[in-house]
């Protein structure tokens, strides 16, 4: 989740007010890229290649797209610091160079997690991805992404380690609250129980929510 806090964007364009450079332009870039990716996925889902998916699979696919976009954005920004400093929330390109290892690993982990849930969302029989391929990508992406997050954690300094631990603790609390409440209602017959993909989507979304709350509380979403 370290990568996600970097997707809060930044600057350039000499002469423009600070809030335009630090907030408006990056937010617009993020919004346009995010909207385009989500719209592209919805178009693909509705195309003849897929023929539509149920609600759980559609939500899971969109969650996968969000993770993939964030992961690829962080990876691209880190690989091209001069460009990355314009849309990632850093002071300058050198800061991206200084944190290259952590950000590259984190970005790769997020992209793999995104690919993992995306493959599961598009799995047969409803989707076009054969089930054995979906299993390989789903499990492989999850395991390799998690494996990459370990060296990223080790290469982090104490602030990032504290944030990782806080975000993990908060996401557990959120999962307990949301999934627990859902399970309680389903057990008592007030609602349908969560489908397997719903649970996966919940884990992914709540982890992202917890990460953003944590980095926000540490002042890391404020423009640098």
């Amino acid at each position, binding site marked *: 989740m370290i990568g996600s806090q970097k997707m809060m964007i930044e600057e350039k364009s000499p002469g423009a007010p600070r809030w335009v450079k630090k907030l408006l332009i990056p937010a617009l870039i993020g919004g346009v890229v995010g909207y385009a990716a989500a719209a592209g996925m919805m178009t693909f889902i509705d195309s003849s290649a897929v023929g539509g998916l149920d609600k759980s699979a559609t939500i899971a696919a969109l969650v996968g797209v969000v993770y993939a976009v964030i992961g690829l954005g962080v990876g691209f920004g880190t690989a091209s610091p001069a460009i990355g400093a314009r849309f990632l929330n850093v002071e300058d390109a050198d800061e991206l160079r200084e944190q290259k290892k952590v950000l590259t690993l984190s970005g790769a982990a997020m992209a793999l997690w995104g690919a993992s849930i995306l493959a599961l969302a598009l799995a047969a029989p409803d989707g076009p991805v054969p089930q054995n391929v979906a299993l390989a990508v789903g499990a492989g992406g999850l395991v390799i992404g998690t494996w990459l997050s370990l060296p990223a954690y080790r290469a982090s300094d104490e602030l990032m380690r504290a944030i990782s631990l806080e975000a993990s603790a908060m996401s557990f609390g959120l999962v307990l609250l949301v999934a627990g409440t859902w399970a309680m209602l389903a057990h008592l017959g007030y609602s349908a129980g969560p489908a397997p993909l719903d649970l996966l989507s919940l884990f992914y979304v709540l982890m992202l929510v917890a990460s953003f709350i944590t980095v926000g509380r*540490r002042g890391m979403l404020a423009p640098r």
Partner: protein
Amino acid sequence: MENRLKQHRDTKGWSQGELARRLGVSRQTINAVETDKYDPSLPLALRMSRLFEVAVPELFIDDWEPEDDD
């Protein structure tokens, strides 16, 4: 916790990046400490005090007072 890290850094004429490099942490950490969003670990606080040649209580201000035993 309130701190005087920025004042001491300014006195030395160092950027956040320069201080981060000297302490072996990220600029984000320096920024978070200076804006009171993060209290550093004891080892990092001790490194800061050695770097600026001041006592830790000179860098980090805590209003807590022990209760009187009487």
